[in-house]
């Protein structure tokens, strides 16, 4: 275990851990958007900035991907950090003025006005949907395209997400809830990626419980028998 200090409080983290997860475990709040414990840190939103002093040098850096190091001192609420965080949330709000979560976070930081032309986006480009799809699910159905202010999260070439198994992981992972999943009759749609798949019906209870495509993928991967998913999860237990 590696000991260090956050805001004057002694904490310790495992080898390979990062500042943010240790802070959150210790009950120290650091605002964050693109961090999720199920995937590797990405460092895109820049909200989790902290000041780190080590070996006489102080740097402002993202806490989600800064490795824990012995003897370092972390400041999560210094003037510089607060100033940067306020500007970042203002920029995010300017990009997606309609997002409730952003509005709340901004209000918490005392930011109410956006001094720029209001944008009309809803996606905050945190990448969690793609990261979860890549690292946890392994479907690789969506990815970032284009750069700069034209950056967006899309299925390949903006067409149908043919790798998507409609598992809904991206829906859950999205901090601002802009992906959306709809079940209508025997169809499930992941709204943002315009992916609609037919669902399989349980032999026992008759409910549509998961998409055929998804179940087939699981069956292949885990080498399960053909009738394995004829019964839904609820009925099987």
């Amino acid at each position, binding site marked *: 275990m590696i000991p260090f200090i956050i805001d004057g409080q002694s904490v310790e983290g495992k080898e390979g851990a990062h500042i943010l997860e240790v802070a959150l475990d210790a009950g120290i709040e650091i605002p964050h958007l693109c961090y999720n414990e199920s995937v590797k840190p*990405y*460092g*895109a*939103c*820049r*909200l989790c*900035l902290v000041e780190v002093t080590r070996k006489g040098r102080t740097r*402002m*850096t*993202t806490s989600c*991907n*800064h*490795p824990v190091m012995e003897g370092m001192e972390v400041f999560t609420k210094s003037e*510089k950090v607060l*100033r*940067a965080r306020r*500007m*970042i949330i203002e*920029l*995010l709000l*300017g*990009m997606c003025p309609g997002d409730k979560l952003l509005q709340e976070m901004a209000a918490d930081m005392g930011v109410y006005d956006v*001094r*720029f*032309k209001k944008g009309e986006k809803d996606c*905050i*480009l945190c990448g969690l949907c793609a990261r979860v799809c890549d690292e946890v699910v392994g479907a690789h159905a969506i990815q*970032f395209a*284009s*750069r*700069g*202010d*034209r*950056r967006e999260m899309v299925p390949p070439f903006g067409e149908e997400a043919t790798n998507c198994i409609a598992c809904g992981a991206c829906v859950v992972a999205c901090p601002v809830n802009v992906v959306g999943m709809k079940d209508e009759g025997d169809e499930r749609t992941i709204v943002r990626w315009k992916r609609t798949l037919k669902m399989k019906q349980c032999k026992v209870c008759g409910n549509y419980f998961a998409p055929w495509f998804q179940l087939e993928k699981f069956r292949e991967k885990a080498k399960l028998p053909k009738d394995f998913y004829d019964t839904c999860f609820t009925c099987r237990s």
Partner: protein
Amino acid sequence: MVRLSSPQELEKYRDQILSKRKPNQPLITVCGGTGCHASGCHAVVDAFRSVLQEKAKGNGIGLRVTGCHGFCERGPLVIIHPQKVFYQKVKPEDVPTIFQDTVLKGKVIESLLYEHPVTGEKVVSEEEVPFYQKQKRMILGNNGSIDPTQIEDYLAVGGYRALAKALFSMKPEEIIREVKKANLRGRGGGGFPAGLKWEQCRNAPDEIKYLICNADEGDPGAYMDRSLLEGNPHSVLEGMIIGAFAIGSHEGYIFVRHEYPLALENVGLGIQRARELGLLGKNILGSGFDFDIKISRGGGAFVAGESTALMATIEGNVGEPRAKHIHTVVSGLYDKPTNLNNVETWANVPVIINEGADWFGRIGTEGSKGTKIFSLVGKVNNTGLVEVPMGITLREIVYDIGGGIPEGKRFKAVQTGGPSGGCIPDSMIDLPVDFDRLTEVGSMMGSGGMIVMDEATCMVDVAKYFMNFLKDESCGKCTSCREGTKRMHEVLTEISEGRGKPEHITLLEELGWVTTEASLCALGGTASNPVLSTIKYFRQEYEEHILNKRCPAKVCRALLHYRILPDLCTSCGRCAKACPENAITGVQKKKKEKGEPFVIAQEKCIQCGMCFETCKFDAVEVQ
């Protein structure tokens, strides 16, 4: 096919090459750099070829198409050896006369000589050309003597001697010590001590190490690396092989931006020829050391020049930078220790090995040793590539080498370091140029772009131009860089279009602050420099735009006010015909009638400037 398997064989081969080249042999060299391509050097080369074919077959008069000489303003450049007569702006029509008079009879053609723009003095040889006099062409100098496609030309000027010395007379640790002692700092922009980087990479515990040459050169207006790779690719290759030996790497990459086809071709050819001769590949010169190089091409993104983004690109991933909590010398390409250096940095290595760190250390300043190649462009008489010792002043570069500002206009500022750099005003023209001095004043050395600006340059427009570039080139990952550059560009557009508000300057400063402090990589980290440095040194200009809705340099279209001066107007009516908005009315002069002065209806005027361009009597005033 000769294959050299020892330093002795290398020297023997070199002697053979030299013995076939007599010092007073007649030779015509034509610069084949991309700058001269654009001025039409190919037609000149073809003209020489046909003249030689016709009139001098078997006469032993050589024709060599060489690398870039640097004086791109005056291309096509032709030098007649052995007299070393320097001809500039040569046209294909001049070729027969050059052949008859200069090549055959040694007579100089006055009209093709370089003429000093102020004194009118004509100069015969390259060394006497004022453009070259304050330069120290340690790295670029050989370009003019070699055909980049002929490795024998490089050998003839002493090429690969440093490699033999490094492999056979020095140990890797010694080489690193020498490079550290020379204090060679990275020429790509970071200015990080190369020797230290090499040492860190060498010490990283892994059998497999990679070496990379960064030839992505994305700064608008910068073409130093291009000319080095096009004009003398072997100087870079030699540096890389020495570096690989010092670090313990056996696999290298040259990452060339896709937009440099000639560089790609020449460096590819160089690699092939070096392999054939045993200077690259397995058992180099019989030393037992293996090292080979692959070429990787960029995909058209400025951000791919950032070292971690570059490595991601080589791996086949999107060129997005990553956090450098763990440095690339420890874990870089394919998670292996990787040493990345810029083209010009690599080209300095053979010089340091040949001449020694002490010799190298005598050039330049305390903190910045050696020379730097700058692309001197913009409002300056002599545009081109200049190589100068560190510590030379901006004044010397702009006036002595650059020949001053054209059309007698006033010098206003010089922009260094590309989109990551800043503007330095005329009050600081005596600033010595080196890494630290430039950073101190709010700019940076960068890769060597140097854009000269005169009184007709609007500094708000300059900031807007760079912001537009950066917002397009940002990879888009970090909120601070993506949104910061976008909003800075937005505010600058508002200011340049007459909608500036007093609070905009503070807003720009705040946006600039957060973009620098919160971004992941150097693109975001330096993006605010063009804005902040122009605000720092040219605040009044911003205020003029915002408070008085005026652009003093008369650049920002929306703030221009066109007016016809009634005293000068001859009523010819040309402006009215040219106006796309039919905004100009008046009574046209007829044979016997005088007519009346024309007037521009301000509400219809779109400030296109056509009337100003069309008027032959200077009667249109722009304010």
